[in-house]
């Protein structure tokens, strides 16, 4: 199973995006500064946006889903129960998973944005998708929900999961790292092998790499263990 981008190009209003690379089974992190083109690339990977040139090739991928930053964009019904049923899931199971038991009859727009995001992600994680693109899945979520998602994704390496995120403290085990720099997709490489060559790593990762040569990955467990080794 793999997703290949060949010389993808998008140009719009002063912004241009270029991407080539192959996403194989496993968990990928796509990071980069705000405005660097991550979400646009996510839309291309999720077949929502057609590139102006280049080719997207999917091998062995039968089902795919794109989770957008705004959970409101995914709403298609009026109540919590109807929304869950629209995904083809058991409402009790989804609500238990999302920590929202008892909210079945509620108007979906009475949920807070964080609650709505939890509901949406629970529906998504309980489905079977060969390719999942999660655009800022942790944004707006409390700590418990972020670690809940992370633990679900950590055990799931038999499909292609692409996480677009700035939040470096709650990641699952990451197999491969990509970065968007000014509209260009860079293949940083496998984790942990390429950690030390990640020139634009976030402040926390740079600090850990500087003080702990044994940093073995980007999952929250790896980071927590590295901090413990440094600070005791």
């Amino acid at each position, binding site marked *: 199973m793999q997703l290949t981008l060949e010389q993808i190009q998008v140009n719009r209003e002063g912004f241009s995006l270029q991407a080539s690379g192959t996403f194989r089974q496993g968990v990928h992190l796509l990071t*980069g500064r705000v405005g660097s083109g991550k979400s646009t690339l996510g839309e291309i990977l999720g077949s929502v946006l057609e590139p102006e040139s280049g080719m997207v090739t999917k091998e062995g991928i039968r089902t795919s889903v794109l989770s957008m930053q705004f959970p409101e964009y995914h709403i298609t019904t009026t109540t919590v129960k109807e929304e869950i049923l629209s995904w083809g899931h058991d409402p009790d199971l989804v609500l238990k998973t999302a920590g929202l038991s008892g909210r079945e009859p509620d108007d979906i727009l009475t949920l807070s944005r964080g609650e709505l995001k939890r509901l949406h992600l629970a529906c998504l994680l309980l489905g079977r998708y060969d390719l999942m693109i999660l655009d800022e899945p942790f944004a707006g979520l409390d700590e*418990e*929900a972020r670690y809940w998602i992370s633990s679900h994704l950590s055990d799931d390496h038999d499909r292609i999961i692409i996480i677009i995120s700035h939040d470096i403290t709650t990641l699952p085990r990451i197999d491969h790292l990509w970065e968007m720099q000014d509209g260009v997709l860079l293949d940083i490489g496998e984790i942990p092998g390429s950690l030390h060559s990640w020139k634009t790593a*976030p*402040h926390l990762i740079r600090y850990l790499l500087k003080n702990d040569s044994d940093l073995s990955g980007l999952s929250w467990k790896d980071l927590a263990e590295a901090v413990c080794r440094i600070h005791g």
Partner: protein
Amino acid sequence: MISLNSIRCGCLSIPHLSIEPGLVAITGPNGSGKTTLLEAIAGIQLPAQGSILINTIRPREATIGWVGEFPDLNMTFTRVIDEIASTLRFSHQPCRMIDESVHELTTTLNLEPLLDRPVRTLSGGEKVLTALAAALITKPDILILDETDSHLDASTLRSIDAIIRDANVPHVLFATHRPDRVASADRVIVMRGGEILREGNPDEVFMKSFHGSDHLSPLRSLRDPALWRAVHATDS
């Protein structure tokens, strides 16, 4: 000082809360009442019971700057310059004064190259800067940032933090889930179920948060304000 007494407002139930001037982080689980608290302090929501005073005046008599999680959703105008000037224009300030204020603020924030750009063509960080400028141009008594950091990278956030620190707004209140942001505050308010669970400086709140059982306790090291101070000290 912001004083809340006997507040009941939606899910909020706060017998008493005093917020001293400074940078205050408000954190807590989804649905715990963070946004409702901020909306009550901003005068967007009126409490069913109780009183809120900002020094000696009520919220709707105070000047409030608000920047939301997705700032462009609340923008009224197409061009950056019109959005930034909008509050002063709505309050019928003289055109010359408005032009001077926009020029002075956007020079400080390095926003001048963006002034004629349509808002929709801006990056996420530029949109936040535009919303921040629109909020700061009124010289607010309180600046509120409701999970504005959710979608921003660390470098963009550090630029925005520096602007906020230099803006000399008496009260800056920001809702956040990020441990690095909590560590950067002068004071922290932790909410749960519409109530104030804890309040104190980042170290005090961090120490108290691990009394009793906590199934996320292995993460303790990543929440420690001392870690984030060390990270920022190394990097600056």
